[in-house]
């Protein structure tokens, strides 16, 4: 029998500490939609997505009511379009992005991820078409998210793609400059992208996945922060144990929702992704966890260690709570989506270089960072290369989601609104890496990839 205190504890987490199920993401394979005629392809993907996901939003809302826990987002991930559309005879994939946008709006999901290409070792013709279509696709759609995987620990880094993505990011910003360069907020460059990630903007449905799967992302930085308030001043063992216990409880809720969503939708359960994902709301912040741990501001010396222990113990607690933990699972450190990170960046406590160091131990990478609009494409590529190198050498996922804000300089500001938040424009190292990026070719796989 559940005790009164346990009931009240759960409800305090939901009502006062922003515990929620951040996303139920339905992964849908589009491999069986292949067609040489792009119009037929578009028709097939629209029909498949709107058929499979027709009840997704309804089921998410019903579960939220049943358990009294918010299910914030309902989303869809699809087979990378560069693979699914490879057979289409066409020069541009923009119409595919528009079809995805229509399908997302029809079923009521707020994002659909998978306008993606996997080019970690090289390009197909289709990959080239997809990447060339990204800037316009991001400008003419609202809900489509795009990602490009440019490296893996197993294969090394495709530096041609790194170079090109610097240019694509800048062009995407240019195409959406009248809308705060929002296109770049929907575009991620990955190293070691995962195939079952339910979180946007980097979600896609990998080719090793089933026809359809339900992946659930749970969050709750506020719950971790409150739990740490109870052990203020205690030693690191107590600190880690508290994070772990809290992560366990949060994940169990996600596991239950995921199981039931998968039953109701008659779709296999894929994974739970336990990621501490902040929102701009006060009390839903990773930065506040750092402060509770004893750092004056995120970015202060000690921040990387604090993040390392947070990320590791979130995973340890989560793994115990669910049979299938996957996705990215850990702590996200986006700047614009976390009020504490924004304030630290505004004060100068948090720099791009410190963020880079933090990405060695967080679950993803440089996320939602606004940079000056006149940053050269080669510099953006250099940042991508650094981030990808960290991922490649450390066998982890890393990502870059930078927003060069056209027409604005360091010290300026950009406002995305909603969950994407707002951000100060952060300074970027002004020394050039153009000659390094211009070399082209591949960086070979690291020595520790030879495991066979």
């Amino acid at each position, binding site marked *: 029998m*559940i005790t009164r205190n346990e009931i009240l504890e759960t409800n305090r987490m939901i009502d006062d500490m922003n515990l929620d199920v951040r996303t139920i993401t339905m992964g849908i394979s589009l491999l069986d939609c292949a067609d040489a005629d792009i119009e037929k392809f578009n028709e097939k993907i629209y029909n498949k997505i709107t058929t499979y996901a027709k009840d997704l939003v309804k089921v998410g809302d*019903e579960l939220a009511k049943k358990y009294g826990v918010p299910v914030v987002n309902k989303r869809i991930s699809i087979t990378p379009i560069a693979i699914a559309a490879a057979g289409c005879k066409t020069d541009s994939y923009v119409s595919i992005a528009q079809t995805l946008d229509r399908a997302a709006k029809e079923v009521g999901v707020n994002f659909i991820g998978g306008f993606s290409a996997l080019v970690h070792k090289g390009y197909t013709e289709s990959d080239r078409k997809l990447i060339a279509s990204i800037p316009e696709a991001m400008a003419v759609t609202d809900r489509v998210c795009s990602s490009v995987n440019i490296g893996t620990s197993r294969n090394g880094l495709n530096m041609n793609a790194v170079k090109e993505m610097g240019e694509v990011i800048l062009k995407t910003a240019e195409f959406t400059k009248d809308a705060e360069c929002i296109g770049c907020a929907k575009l991620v460059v990955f190293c070691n992208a995962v195939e079952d990630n339910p979180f946007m903007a980097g979600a896609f449905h990998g080719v090793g996945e089933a026809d359809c799967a339900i992946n659930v992302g749970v969050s709750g930085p506020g719950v971790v922060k409150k739990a740490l308030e109870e052990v203020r001043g205690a030693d690191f063992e107590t600190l880690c144990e508290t994070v772990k216990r809290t992560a366990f409880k949060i994940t169990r809720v996600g596991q239950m929702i995921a199981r039931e969503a998968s039953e109701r939708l008659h779709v296999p359960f894929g994974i739970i992704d336990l990621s501490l994902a902040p929102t701009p709301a006060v009390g839903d912040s990773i930065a506040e966890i750092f402060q509770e741990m004893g750092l004056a501001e995120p970015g202060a010396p000690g921040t990387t260690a604090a993040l390392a222990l947070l990320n590791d113990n979130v995973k340890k607690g989560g793994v115990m709570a669910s049979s299938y933990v996957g996705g990215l699972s850990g702590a996200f450190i986006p700047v614009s989506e976390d009020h504490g990170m924004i304030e630290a960046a505004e004060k100068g406590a948090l720099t791009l270089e410190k963020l880079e160091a933090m990405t060695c131990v967080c679950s993803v990478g440089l996320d939602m960072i606004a940079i000056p609009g006149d940053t050269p494409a080669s510099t953006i590529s250099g940042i991508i290369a650094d981030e990808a190198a960290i991922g490649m050498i450390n066998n982890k996922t890393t990502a870059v989601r930078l927003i060069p804000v056209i027409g604005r300089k360091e010290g300026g500001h950009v406002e995305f609104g909603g969950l994407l938040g707002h951000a100060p424009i952060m300074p970027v190292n002004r020394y050039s890496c153009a000659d390094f990026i211009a070399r082209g070719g591949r960086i070979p796989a690291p020595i520790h990839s030879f495991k066979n």
Partner: protein
Amino acid sequence: MQEMEKAVITVLGQDCVGITAKVCTALAESNINILDISQTIVGGYFNMVMVVDITNMKLQYDEISAKLDALGDEMNLKIKVQHTKIFDAMHRV
């Protein structure tokens, strides 16, 4: 035999006459049986936790939750209904 389905109803807000009566009436109308009630008043704040049997409930989840929301609005209370599975999931291994 069908396994009993249970829910937890929590009621929070300023104390006033008839809270328990009105909540219980609403539940009875929906064929929901009360299994356990615990109630405290701290500093004028009314705090009630009920465990109820919803196996033969006449309403759907969204309907009962809408009904209790409406009652909560009328009496200036926060009333929440949740299936017990969420508490078992979180607190029992």
